[in-house]
C-alpha cells in the first residue's frame, strides 16, 4: 500500500496527529504529569490546527507571518498555563489562598490571562492579516468568475 504522504504539504497535519496522540496518552495516565502534558499538547494542537487552516495562504504568499503569529499564541498560552500550574500545585486545596485582583492566584490566571489575552491577539490578527495574506482582490475576481460559471451550467 503506497503511503499518501507529502512532507511539505503534510507537516502541520502530522504535527497535529502527534499532539492528538499525546493528548490521548495524557488522558489515560492522568496525574500531575498527565495534566501538564495534556495542556501542552492541546496548546500545540490549537496552533497547528490554525496553521493547517492557513497553509494555503502561507504557500501562496511564501511567508512566515502565520508561523510568527502562532509562535506568539503559543507564547501567551504557554506562559498562562505555566503560571496556572505553578500556582495551582502550590496550593491545590485553595485553603487560605493568596489573592490577585480579587481571585485566588491560579483562578486569576485563568480569568485574566487565559480568557481574553490569547483571544484578543488572535481575533485582531485575522483582520490585520486579512487583506494582505488571507483574501486579496485577485482571488475575489477569480472565485466570482468560478461562481458565474457554476450558475451558468
Amino acid at each position, binding site marked *: 500500500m503506497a503511503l*499518501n*504522504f507529502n512532507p511539505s*504539504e*503534510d507537516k502541520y*497535519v*502530522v504535527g*497535529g*496527529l502527534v499532539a*492528538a*496522540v499525546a*493528548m*490521548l496518552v495524557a*488522558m*489515560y495516565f492522568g496525574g500531575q504529569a498527565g*495534566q501538564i502534558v*495534556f495542556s501542552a499538547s*492541546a496548546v500545540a*494542537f*490549537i496552533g497547528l*490546527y490554525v496553521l*493547517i*487552516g*492557513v497553509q*494555503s*495562504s502561507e504557500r*501562496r504568499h511564501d511567508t512566515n507571518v502565520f508561523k510568527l503569529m502562532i509562535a506568539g499564541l503559543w507564547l501567551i498560552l504557554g506562559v498562562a498555563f505555566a503560571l*496556572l500550574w505553578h500556582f*495551582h500545585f502550590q496550593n*491545590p*486545596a*485553595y*485553603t*487560605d*489562598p493568596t*489573592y490577585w*485582583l*480579587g*481571585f*485566588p492566584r*491560579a*483562578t486569576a490566571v*485563568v*480569568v485574566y490571562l487565559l*480568557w*481574553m489575552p*490569547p*483571544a*484578543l491577539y*488572535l*481575533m485582531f490578527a*485575522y*483582520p490585520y492579516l*486579512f487583506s494582505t495574506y*488571507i*483574501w486579496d482582490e485577485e482571488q475575489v475576481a477569480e*472565485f*466570482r468568475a*468560478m*461562481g458565474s460559471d*457554476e450558475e451558468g451550467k
Partner: protein
Amino acid sequence: MIAIPEAVLAQVSTTETMNPLIVGVVAVYLLGIAAIGVWATGQTESTSDFLIAGKRFGIWAVAFAAFASIMSGFGFIGGPGLFYDGGYGFLWIAIVAPLAFPVSWFVLGKKMRLMAEVREIFTIPDAAVARFDSEAVRLLVSVSVLLGVISYLGVQFLAIAFVLQTVLGVSEVTALAIGLVVISIYTIGGGMIAGIFTDLIQGGIMVIGSVVVFLLALDTVNGFSAMNRELSSQIPELAGAFGAFPIMLGLTWYFLFLVGNSGQPHMAHKLYMLRDPKLLKWGAPIAALSYFAASLMMLALGVGMRSLVETGQFAELANPDNAAPIFLVEFTPAIVAGVVLAAAVGAVMSTSDAFINIGAANLARDIPESLGFEYASDRQELRAHRVATALIILVSVLLVYYVEILVGLLGVVGWGLFAAAIVPLLGIGLNWKGATTEGAIAAGVVALFGNLGLAIAVQFYGFSLPHGSATEALTLLVAIVVMIAVSLVTNTKARDDIDDDIERVIDS
C-alpha cells in the same frame, strides 16, 4: 447598592405572580420576533433564501448570528447554574469561545464561504460530499447532524418552557406552546432570513443585558474580592481554578469547546450567508467580543448567587438552573430583569432556529439526496423544507415528552457529535489535500458510533473515563487521529484526485 433581603426563602415558582413590567417586556419581545417572522416569510422565495438567506447578509448580522446561536440556553441559563454548582470549574467552557471564534475563522471562514461560491452548497453535508464525493460520507454526517439537532432541540425546548414558565407564571405545557408558536411562525415561514434578523436582535439584547447584570451582580456581592473571599472561607475548592470539577474534565472541556467550535453546524453554516466573502474580515472580533460580553453575566451571577447562599444571605436553591431567574427577580430592577429574561428566551430561540433549519435541511435535502432522490423544481424543494421544519419541531417536542430517555442520552453528546463529525471532515478536509474519502468515512463512523456508544455506556452502565475526562473530547481526538492516519495510507479524492474547483478552494 441593592439591599439583600434576609434569607429570602421564596423561590421563583410557577405559581408566583411575576412583576407585570417583566411580563410586558418579554411579551413585547415575543410579539416582535413573531412579526419579523411574518415579514421574512414574504421575503423567502427560494430554497437558497430559506437555507442560507440567499447569501444576502453583512458581517454584523452573520457574526452576531454565529455568536447568538453558540450562546444557547445552555450558556445563558445553564451557565449560571453550573457556576453556582461547581464554582469556577465552568470557566473552562465559558472562557473558550472568544478564542474559538478566531480559530474557526482562520480554519474554516474562507473555505466554507468559497465552497458556497463554486458549488450549489446550502448545508454542511453538501460541503462534505463536494470535498469527498461520497454519499456514504453524506449519510454519516447527515445522521450525526440530525441526531445532534434533535438532542439540542429537545434541550432547548425544555429551556424555553423553563424560562417562559418562570416569567409568565403559566404551566410548563402552556409555556412550551407559547414558545413553539413564536418559533414556528418565524422558522417555517421565514427560514434563515428570519433567523438571522432575530439573531441580530437577540444577540444585541444578550450583550447589553449581560453587561448590565454583570455590574449589578458585582455591586450586590461587593465585588469579586469580597465574593471570592466569602466563598473560599466556606468551600475553598469552589474558588479554585477548576472549581468542584476534576482537573482533567476542565482541560478536556477546554480542548473540546475550543477546537469543536469549528465543527458546530449552527456556527459554520452561518458562513455561507455572507453576501461578500471579503466581509469575513471583522467577523472574528465581532463574534468573539460579543460572546465575551454575553458570558460575563453567567460568571458574576452564578458564583455571586452561590456566595450569597454559602454566607447565609439567601436560601439554598432547589435547582441550580434557578440561579439566573431568581437573581434577576430578587436583585435587579424589573425592567432589567425583563430585558435579561427576554435575552434568555432569545438565547434559546436563536439556537433553536438554527437547529430547526439545519435539521429541516437534513430531512428534506441531505438524507433524500444521499438516497438518490431529486426535486422537480426549487419551489417543490422549498415546500419540502417548510414541511420538514414543522416536522422537526413536532418530532423534537414529542421526544421531549414521550422519549425522555433519548433526549437525556443525546442531550449530553450534541456538541461532541457535531465536533467529532465535522472537525476532521471540514476543518481538516477542506485545508489538507491529503485527506481521503476512506479517512472521512472512518472518522464519520468513529464520530457517530463512538459518541452514541460512549453515551449509552455512561447513561446506562455508569461508565466513566479515567480521571474524569469528557467522553466527547475522547471521540473528537480519536476521530481526528483516525481521519489523519487512514488518509495517510489511502488515496481516494486526495491530491491530484480532487475535483479542480474544490482543489482551488483548498489552495486558496
